[in-house]
């Protein structure tokens, strides 16, 4: 009995491990720093431990599922399957790191209780998205994510921040609506929304092909807003005005990832890749992703603001995941899914570093970065690793994804993908290498825009350690890609489930 209980409640506990600290933090007075830090880190660590137990359990054949009736015939389902574990583990690990970073970053700034409260809620929603066992639950947490991220984006309260928040909402709420309509419609047709590996639509719906295509478009448009697919990406570069930990969260841990994850869910577990192909929607999606990849990179090329450049880079990189998903075939799918993890780790490194530059030196623009590598060698070393990862240079994590994508595309007979990958790599190099050049090889200016001194180290340790850890991770994930329990191995395991009946 005891064991069965845990199988039900563990997913909920994982949710609660960030929800409850978040709610408690809201009520903490501003000056109770220690208590707040304790709650933050305690929640994050607890979540990590619980996720560890979950992974161990799933690996040992436990079936974790929490079910709660929401409407007659529609349940709120939290379930731990292999795919959700990938995302849960990613967000749990990165959340802990980001929390440390955020504590360091926001030291002494106003409204910290509010910030960390929403911060925790944001991760709760992300974990909910990850653990969602049906489209309804996914939708619920997806929308919740929209709402709790908004306060983080506008946290600084400046005019630009509010504008960014408005744009963010305009996009995401519209996207959420599209998702809602698609979901309701699909529910009307299929009568169920339960995620099933290889999709449930094909089994439950006969005929209605036109409707199913429209629903697919609605669903993909809904999640695609967060994944910043091409015509829907406008909010992401705007949202870079938010504080660095928020950007990290947006780009690497939560929002964008939730969107990409949603696309994976819709394609694999709602429609099923084979059925999506037979509907003729997979190839257009792949092409859209490819266009986004190139478009984002081209835009990034022309940005002088560092975070803006990184934001456009995200637009481009996230579409790798979509591309891998939309190409039929296990190898490409491995490439796409593993990029979910890899992109997260690499991009979070870059944003941490950008935040360090801004916080320590007041450097926001690339044109101000001359010689910054001498002043902050550790930060820039981490940045360099992240940038090379984005370019896809071996042995960084980005290379692993790119390799699998290329290989998978060839396997699926979609040779056109290889030039896209090559072009993207070139563009990535074109916009990252000049930054590195400036940072390492140019002579620093006489003074920095707004320098703060931290004694012997280049910046505070809470700011320095997170990017170093994630940079190390992005190196390690590539270098030891074939080690047991590496994301790559885990993704291969997931894909076996998806492709082998």
């Amino acid at each position: 009995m005891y064991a069965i209980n845990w199988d039900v409640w563990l997913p909920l506990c994982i949710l609660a491990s960030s929800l409850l600290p978040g709610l408690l933090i809201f009520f903490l007075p501003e000056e109770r720093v220690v208590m707040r830090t304790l709650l933050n880190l305690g929640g994050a660590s607890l979540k990590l431990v619980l996720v560890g137990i979950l992974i161990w359990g799933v690996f040992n054949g436990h079936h974790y599922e929490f079910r709660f009736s929401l409407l007659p015939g529609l349940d709120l389902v939290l379930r731990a399957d292999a795919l959700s574990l990938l995302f849960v583990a990613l967000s749990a690990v990165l959340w802990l790191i980001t929390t440390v970073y955020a504590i360091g970053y926001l030291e002494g700034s106003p409204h910290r209780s509010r910030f960390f409260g929403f911060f925790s809620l944001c991760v709760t929603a992300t974990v909910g998205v990850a653990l969602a066992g049906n489209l309804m639950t996914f939708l619920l947490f997806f929308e919740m994510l929209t709402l709790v991220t908004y306060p983080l984006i506008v946290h600084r309260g400046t005019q630009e921040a509010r504008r960014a928040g408005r744009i963010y909402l305009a996009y995401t709420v519209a996207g959420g609506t599209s998702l809602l309509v698609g979901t309701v419609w699909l529910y009307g047709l299929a009568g169920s929304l339960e995620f099933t590996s290889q999709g449930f639509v094909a089994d439950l719906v006969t005929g209605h092909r036109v409707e199913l295509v429209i629903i697919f478009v609605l669903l993909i448009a809904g999640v695609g807003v967060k994944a910043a697919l091409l015509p829907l990406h406008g909010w992401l570069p705007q949202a870079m005005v938010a504080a660095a930990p928020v950007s990290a969260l947006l780009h690497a841990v939560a929002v964008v990832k939730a969107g990409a994850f949603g696309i994976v869910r819709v394609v694999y577990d709602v429609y099923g890749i084979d059925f999506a192909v037979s509907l003729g929607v997979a190839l257009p999606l792949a092409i859209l992703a490819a266009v986004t990849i190139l478009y984002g990179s081209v835009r990034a090329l022309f940005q002088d603001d560092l975070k803006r450049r990184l934001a456009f880079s995200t637009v481009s990189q996230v579409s790798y995941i979509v591309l891998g998903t939309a190409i039929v075939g296990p190898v490409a799918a491995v490439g796409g899914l593993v990029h979910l993890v890899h992109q997260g780790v690499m991009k979070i490194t870059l944003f941490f570093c950008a935040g360090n530059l801004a916080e320590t030196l007041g450097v926001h623009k690339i044109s101000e970065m001359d010689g910054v590598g001498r002043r902050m060698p550790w930060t820039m070393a981490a940045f360099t690793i992240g940038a090379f990862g984005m370019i896809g240079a071996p042995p960084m994590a980005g290379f692993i994804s790119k390799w699998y994508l290329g290989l998978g595309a060839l396997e699926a007979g979609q040779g056109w993908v290889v030039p896209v990958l090559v072009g993207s790599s070139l563009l990535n190099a074109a916009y990252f290498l000049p930054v590195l050049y400036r940072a390492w090889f140019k002579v620093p200016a006489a003074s920095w825009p707004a320098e703060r001194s931290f004694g012997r180290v280049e910046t505070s340790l809470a700011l320095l350690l997170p990017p170093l850890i994630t940079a190390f991770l992005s190196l390690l994930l590539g270098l030891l890609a074939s080690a047991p329990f590496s994301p790559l191995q885990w993704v291969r395991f997931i894909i076996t489930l998806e492709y082998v009946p």
Partner: protein
Amino acid sequence: MLAQSFSWQVTVIILPLVAALLCFMLPKWGRWLGLVMAFAITGSVIVLAYQVMNQGALRYAVGGWGAPLGIDLYVDGLSLLMLMVVALVGLVVSVYSMAYFKAGKAVHFWPLWMLLWTAMNALFLSADIFNLYVTLELLGLAAVALVALAGGVDALGAAMRYLLVSLLGSLCYLLGVALLYHSFGTVDIALLAERVESTPAVWAAMALMTVGLLFKTALFPLHFWLPPAHASAPAPVSALLSALVVKASFYILLRLWLEVFSQDSTAAAQLLGVLGAAAVLWGGVQALRQTRLKMLIAYSTVSQIGYLFLVFPLASLMAWQAGLYLLLSHALAKAAMFLAAGNILCFGGHDRIADLDRVAQRLPLSLTAFALAGVSSMGLPFSGGFIGKWMLLDAALQSGQWWWVAVIIVGGLLAAAYIFNVIGHSFTRAEISHEAKPVPAIMEWSALVLALAAVLMGLFASWPLAVMDIGAPFGGGGS
């Protein structure tokens, strides 16, 4: 049909009436009496609910007379839910009002409010259309008096107009009652439902009663009286009016359409839907343009009422349930919004949206209440509004009338736009500190409790939906 020795139906009507009298006669004790009685009424509603859930729909003939001569009190799932939401909102508003009204106005507020409660409880329990008229009129008068409580030209003018609207609407309704009674010799809804047939008198009655009730429900384009009235009333009154009073006339409309006019009046139903759609859009756009918080909330009510009318053209079981669910969650959310707005007004002395930054950051609980209620209004999860919207969308898609889907979506987006327009201001960095009056914690928490209730409606939908089915109020209108 036998008279029971003791009826909880009667109790829930008598208790507030007694309370009103007591409050009137003992003005000094008004506040405490009101509060105690609010708890008592809520308790008796709970008991009644328990009874109904165990025994199914109940009919009680007052004094043992029975229809057609006597007064019947009928309670099924629909009326029970209405009673309960009135009790919940009423209780919280009572607690809020304890702190809100200072000596002078409290004297007037408590008797009027208890009278309003009496009228509402009686209305939801009435089983015949004439009784509905009386309670409706009583409700209107109490509501008008409450609006006038605020004093000042704006409030008085708005109250006056509200009164005229109310009277005009009820007179039309009464005319309809006369026509129906003439045709079928009864005013009991159940009997009418059995006897009704299509005659010119019925359609005239239908038109008169429907439009009369639309007027009181403030459906576009007859909404013009609502924003000034709701915006100029004191905060607890606004909450009551927006959350409950407009719903009462809608409730009558729903009953009539479900039982009496249920035969295939599709064109009229479509017209109701069109008006509802227009209300959703017009109210939303107008809300977007407002510079005052309370006006914004009032226009939001105009918009939200529109949703309720989208169920008429759909006319499936799911649609009715969706409508009712939207009604309930709107009641909770809108009350929370007005209470939160009241807090902000009380704290900062104004409700200009553009200057909210000075205020809102220092009232985090009220702001949270507003935001959560806003989430429900937008129909985003987790909230009752989401569940209602989900079911409404489902019903619309299943009936193949996809154009309502477009309306629902645009309405939701408009709601998001105007709600976030407010919330966005509260994040602005406020450099200028502001002279402010402290707000009692109980007022902040009241707003929050209602907002949380609206949110919880989104998590525990099965229970209200099960209650809704008691006595199958939608059975006749079902697909």
